[in-house]
């Protein structure tokens, strides 16, 4: 039995030929071992292999043991224990992920917040995904410790999503940070007061947390540091940044150096110029003295020579003073040339420094990240101990790999094997980017929702390529407000700020200043939309569209004519629209233009009113005219009658006249007849007389012819 115990397990029982071929012989890859095994096995009547234990020596047993281990080892394609570890890790991760993680978060967050607020906290459906970098929950309510049937705050669906991959590049890209349906002081259906045991628990946990904070003193320090930086940046960001990066700036030192040089030069030149000035003054005085001498007063050769030598000496002094001044001037030019050059180098250094500070502003978020990382480090070290060390090592390896990918030679890299790096277009990300931020309070059911949305918030819009947009909306039962602003600080973009502000159903009420028009009050709903565009120099333009609806006027009872007219004109106007265009520069409006349809409406109303009034006036006038003409018409009828009588008389007279005329005519006929008779009588008498005469004259002529003996006679 003892020897049987030592026989390796696969050979203890009879082995079927199939099993021997598939599970044993196939797994022995050395022929000598196959031969050895076959020599130790015998086959029974059924063909099963049996180990002949009688033939087995001590060495044979040892060899069989090793062989059985080798057979076991040559089984399968995957290493069992490695696969088991992997499966355990995967199963553990999945199990933790699906069953534990969110429960732990729920319990942790609720107990932590309960410790802070000393009241019930309910967190609904928390979800954390480390790989996706997402933390979200459906609902969070924190009860009021002083009024247990009321919530301090209620928060609806909230999400925080970070691009985990970009964190490897030290870039904080927040895809989404949103909290919706935030409400304060809402009623609770159950009491939010903590039970005595819960209070005890939370107090203990609070104490632990305080202890933990004491242990991680560095963490507190880092937090304070972060706060200090935040406050500093918030208070005076530009100055703080310049101070923090002063050591890296070139221009301050250069300016200081050049200024020192300026001061030195100034001192030197003040003295030197004074000396030259004195020298020239002295020469001038001497010259005046020499030239004041009267030449005619020189009466001897000696005096003349003295005078001449004086002149020569004076000339020499003057020439020397001139040379000194010229030399000084050349040196001065040299000095100023250097200072001029220094000025251009200062300008260059300032430009470089500005570029550097701009990049530093862009990397501010990176610095903040560093502070956050410093804060987290000691806490993580305390909590995870060795695991944290390992994660740090992995992190270091990643950074080394990253540094290699940015063309820096890593210590892991194969020496001498560089290859060719092909560049593919990369989308660059800014150091900090908040893609979408949303806060909303109130609920749609109450009809009162306020929403703030910020998109693409970053300090480096040029890299991200999109402007920052801000939306504020407030929807109330009666109306609402919408503000949409776009801030575009990218280079070569004209408009720094553009936006649209819409105010819906804003009630307007005026009760003063309209009395002179007999209007007591004016009420309306206004719908306003303002479009704005602001350039970097604070100049720009804007347009405001104002629509007034539900216009209501109340008029004073004893209105004058104008008031009455206004009442009639305005009473029919219920809506009107105004369009205001304005331009501004340096923050001040410098032109304003208002266009309104009110002019047209009023003109139309006035025209209608005037027409109505004209018709009324015409009717009144007609009636008045008829009243006025009634007497006159009576007179007229009377006169007309009188006139008729006169007419009749005239007719009679006429008839009389006609009769008379006929009489006269008859008389005239009579006279004419008489006249003709007389004329005939007379004519006859004349003819008689003429014939008589004629006869007498003929006789005389005949006598005369005969007298005168004229043949024709």
């Amino acid at each position, binding site marked *: 039995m003892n020897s049987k115990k030592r026989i390796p397990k696969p050979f203890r029982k009879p082995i079927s030929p199939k099993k021997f071929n598939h599970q044993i012989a196939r797994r022995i*890859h050395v022929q000598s*071992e196959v031969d050895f095994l076959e020599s130790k096995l015998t086959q029974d009547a059924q063909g099963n292999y049996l180990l002949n234990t009688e033939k087995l020596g001590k060495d044979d047993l040892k060899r069989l043991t090793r062989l059985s281990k*080798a057979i076991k080892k040559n089984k399968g394609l995957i290493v069992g224990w490695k696969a088991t570890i992997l499966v355990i890790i995967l199963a553990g991760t999945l199990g933790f992920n699906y069953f534990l993680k969110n429960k732990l978060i729920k319990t942790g967050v609720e107990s932590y917040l309960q410790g802070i607020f000393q009241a019930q906290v309910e967190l609904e459906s928390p979800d954390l995904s480390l790989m996706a970098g997402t933390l979200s929950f459906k609902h969070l309510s924190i009860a009021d410790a002083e009024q247990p049937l009321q919530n301090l705050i209620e928060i609806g669906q909230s999400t925080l999503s970070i691009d985990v991959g970009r964190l490897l590049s030290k870039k904080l890209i927040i895809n989404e940070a949103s909290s919706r349906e935030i409400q304060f002081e809402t009623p609770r259906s159950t009491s939010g007061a903590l039970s005595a045991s819960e209070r005890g628990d939370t107090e203990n946990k609070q104490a632990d947390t305080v202890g933990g904070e004491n242990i991680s003193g560095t963490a507190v320090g880092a937090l304070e540091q972060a706060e200090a930086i935040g406050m500093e940046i918030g208070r005076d960001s530009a100055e703080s940044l310049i101070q923090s990066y002063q050591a890296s700036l070139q221009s301050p030192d250069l300016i200081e150096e050049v200024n020192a040089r300026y001061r030195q030069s100034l001192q030197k030149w003040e003295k030197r110029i004074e000396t030259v000035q004195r020298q020239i003054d002295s020469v001038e005085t001497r010259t005046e003295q020499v030239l004041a001498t009267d030449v005619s007063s020189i009466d001897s050769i000696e005096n003349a020579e003295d005078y001449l030598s004086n002149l020569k000496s004076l000339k020499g002094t003057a020439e020397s003073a001139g040379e000194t001044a010229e030399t000084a001037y050349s040196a001065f030019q040299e000095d100023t040339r250097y200072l001029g050059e220094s000025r251009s180098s200062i300008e260059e250094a300032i430009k470089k420094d500005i570029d550097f500070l701009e990049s530093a502003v862009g990397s501010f978020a990176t610095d903040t990240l560093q502070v956050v990382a410093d804060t987290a480090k000691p806490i993580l070290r305390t909590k995870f101990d060795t695991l944290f060390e390992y994660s740090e090592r992995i992190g270091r390896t990643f950074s080394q*790999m990253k540094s*290699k990918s940015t063309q820096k030679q890593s210590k892991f890299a194969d020496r001498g094997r560089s*290859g060719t790096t092909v560049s593919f277009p990369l989308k660059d990300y800014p150091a900090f980017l908040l893609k979408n931020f949303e806060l909303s309070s109130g609920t749609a059911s109450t009809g009162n929702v306020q929403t703030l949305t910020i998109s693409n918030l970053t300090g480096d819009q040029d890299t991200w390529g999109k402007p920052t947009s801000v939306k504020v909306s407030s929807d109330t039962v009666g109306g609402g407000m919408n503000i949409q602003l776009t801030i575009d600080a990218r280079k070569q973009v004209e408009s720094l700020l553009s936006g649209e502000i819409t105010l819906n159903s804003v009630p307007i009420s005026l009760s003063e200043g309209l009395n002179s028009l007999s209007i007591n009050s004016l009420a309306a709903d206004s719908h306003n939309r303002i479009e704005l565009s602001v350039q970097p120099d604070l100049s720009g333009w804007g347009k405001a569209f104002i629509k007034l609806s539900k216009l209501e006027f109340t008029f004073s009872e004893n209105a004058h004519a104008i008031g009455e007219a206004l009442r009639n004109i305005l009473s029919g106007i219920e809506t009107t629209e105004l369009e205001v265009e304005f331009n501004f520069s340096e923050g001040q409006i410098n032109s304003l233009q208002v266009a309104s349809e009110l002019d047209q409406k009023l003109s139309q109303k006035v025209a209608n009113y005037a027409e109505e009034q004209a018709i009324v006036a015409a009717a009144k006038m007609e009636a008045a005219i008829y009243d006025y003409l009634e007497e006159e018409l009576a007179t007229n009828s009377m006169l007309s009658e009188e006139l008729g009588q006169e007419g009749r008389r005239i007719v009679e007279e006429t008839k009389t006249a006609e009769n008379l005329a006929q009489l006269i005519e008859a008389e005239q006929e009579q006279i004419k007849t008489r006249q003709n008779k007389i004329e005939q009588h007379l004519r006859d008498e004349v003819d008689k007389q003429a014939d008589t005469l004629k006869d007498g004259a003929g006789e005389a002529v005949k006598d005369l012819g005969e007298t005168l003996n004229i043949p024709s006679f």
Partner: protein
Amino acid sequence: MITLIARFIAALNANSRPGEIAAGFACGILLALIPFGNLLWFLLFAVFFLLKLHGGTLLFTAVLLKLFIGVMDPLVDSFGLSILTQPSLTPYFTSAMNTPVLPLMEFNNSLVTGGLTLGLLLWLPLFFGGRIAVKMYRKGIRDKLVSSKIVKTFEKIPWIRKLTTAIQKSTAIYHGWSS
């Protein structure tokens, strides 16, 4: 290095599956072809670690070939470059380059892409070739080699003796070498 050589020789002579040794050999060549120090290399190494292939052979082949891989670099470089500059593949490489983790694989390096592609293409021929070679070695060469005078002379050299001891520690089957 001695341990690696010992483990390789021990595997050749022990009752290790020829496929394991051949897979270790093919994977070792793949790892040698890809430059070290990028995520792809570590990932492949992790996958190979999980599979049942002979680790000693893998490391021995990889380390040995690393010493001479420089000779093949011009070929690998031009091969990788021809893949990376394929216009039809450019969109895929660009989008992969813009993901957070994939650039850590440094696939935009011609040696990485060339090495990976060449290693994968050669993997099956190397595997089957290696298997045949191990079987042939075990059938015909091993015994002749063991009984040859050259080997016996070599055995007397101190570092070879050290190697032999290491092999003996590594193998549970082979007896002929030291006898």
